């Protein structure tokens, strides 16, 4: 993470939170686990090669993701994933007090699955590296089918250990310990419908804020009427998330998907997520996937866009991900799949392209750059920030 500093004394470095979160989150939500959680079935042998791209809010992130999975004797399955983020950021935070930067994050994962009768045991490990952040995690899942295979019960546990550094301070080193507890239940409702219920409790302890991020506070003596100081988060965070999903096979060959999630944590954030999806095959080879997602959340108790003075309270944040906001996402994907007859070891392959457009509207996070060097707009009266982003995934899947 290299950030070119402006010659402003208090503009220490404000790297984007995107960078920090980017590392941690993926380290605990990897495809090896997502593909197999809550289903007592050995995952299908496959190789996926994906190019991903995110562009919005002054941030561009792209890179490859390669997943290889191979089973043995219908009881074991090994998997490996290699993932890269190439980040170029001039986000709203960076614009406020630093300069655009580029960085690279690399993540490697390996996984192992074992199926015994109707129980599937899954274990995986992930390692993520960046020049100022290291993250390691391991994940364990157990799924069991019962009641004539109409029901599946699953339990999961993940543990992550992160190390946080600063590029501008060789002495700075902090640690974070993360634990995830998962419970899942899925049920076949009818011959056309399935449902799932998932719970995940997450407990974090350690240095949870961005070491570079700053909050702003009112200072009438400053030409901009505000100055910046380091943000301070609590050292612990505990959250609960409960999600319900339903999929229905329509009278013709198509499916409808519904997902809803409620989230709450001890920082004061409550969030709701609703997703709708419609999947429609065109002939034997083409599949169209369209989906919509809505999200809203309340702010953390210690969030403020502009604090009244310096050291106003013990914990303080001006991270827009901790503010009050909502988002709408609309996406469409297309898949072309064909059987492979030329090579006996290969079964089929598909080419996939998905594009999502996301709109974020913040309700108490302002565009602080609007009042910088402005005589017309005062600090605290800037327009609320909003931005749109486009997310692209292009990938080829080979099944064997």
């Amino acid at each position: 993470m290299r950030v070119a500093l402006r010659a402003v004394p208090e503009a220490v470095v404000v790297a984007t939170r995107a960078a920090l979160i980017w590392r941690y989150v993926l380290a605990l939500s990897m495809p090896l686990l997502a593909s197999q959680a809550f289903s007592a079935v050995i995952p299908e042998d496959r190789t996926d090669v994906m190019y991903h791209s995110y562009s919005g809010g002054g941030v561009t992130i792209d890179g490859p993701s390669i997943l290889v999975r191979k089973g043995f004797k219908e009881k074991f399955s090994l998997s490996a994933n290699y993932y890269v983020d190439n980040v170029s950021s001039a986000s709203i935070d960076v614009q406020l007090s630093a300069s655009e930067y580029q960085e690279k994050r690399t993540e490697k994962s390996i996984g192992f699955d074992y199926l015994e009768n109707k129980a599937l045991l899954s274990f995986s490990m992930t390692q993520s590296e960046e020049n100022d952040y290291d993250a390691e995690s391991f994940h364990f899942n157990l799924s069991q089918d019962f009641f004539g295979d109409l029901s599946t019960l699953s339990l999961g546990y993940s543990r992550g250990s992160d190390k946080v550094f600063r590029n501008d301070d060789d002495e700075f080193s902090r640690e974070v310990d993360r634990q995830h507890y998962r419970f899942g239940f899925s049920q076949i409702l009818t011959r056309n419908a399935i449902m799932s219920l998932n719970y995940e409790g997450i407990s974090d302890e350690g240095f949870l804020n961005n070491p570079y991020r700053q909050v702003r506070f009112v200072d009438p003596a400053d030409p901009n009427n505000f100055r910046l100081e380091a943000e301070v988060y609590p050292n612990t965070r505990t959250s609960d998330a409960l999600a319900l999903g339903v999929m229905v096979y329509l009278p013709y060959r198509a499916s409808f998907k519904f997902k809803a999630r409620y989230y709450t944590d001890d920082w004061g954030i409550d969030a709701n997520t609703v997703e709708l999806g419609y999947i429609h095959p065109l002939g034997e080879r083409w599949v169209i996937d369209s989906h919509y997602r809505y999200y809203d959340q309340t702010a953390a108790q210690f969030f403020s866009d502009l604090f009244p003075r310096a050291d106003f309270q013990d914990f303080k944040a001006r991270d827009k991900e901790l503010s009050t906001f909502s988002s709408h996402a609309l996406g469409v994907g297309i898949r072309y799949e064909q059987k492979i007859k030329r090579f006996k070891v290969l079964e089929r392959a598909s080419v996939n392209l998905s594009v999502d457009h996301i709109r974020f509207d913040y309700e108490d996070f302002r565009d602080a750059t609007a009042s910088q060097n402005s005589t017309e707009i005062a600090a605290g009266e800037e327009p609320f920030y909003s931005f749109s982003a486009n997310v692209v995934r292009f990938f080829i899947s080979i099944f064997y």
Partner: protein
Amino acid sequence: MRLRLNNCFENSMQPLIRIAGLPVLALMASCSSIEPWVKPYERDRLSDPIMQFDAAPVSAAYMHHVYQAREGARGAEGGTGGGCGCN
């Protein structure tokens, strides 16, 4: 005295126990008769690839990641195509 109280309690509670016990017995009886109502040979639609919550693991994990990086909420995103009895 205790014996008398116990007898009194038991006597007064007996009708209640009988009334409350009836639905419990009925529920137990019905539970024992509940069987999987979707037979394996009736699950062809459920095993269709279009019935997977997250058909492409790399793409789904990436999208979870995109949202988690920009939202305060986290967790419980894991999709499930479970219970299909396909093994």
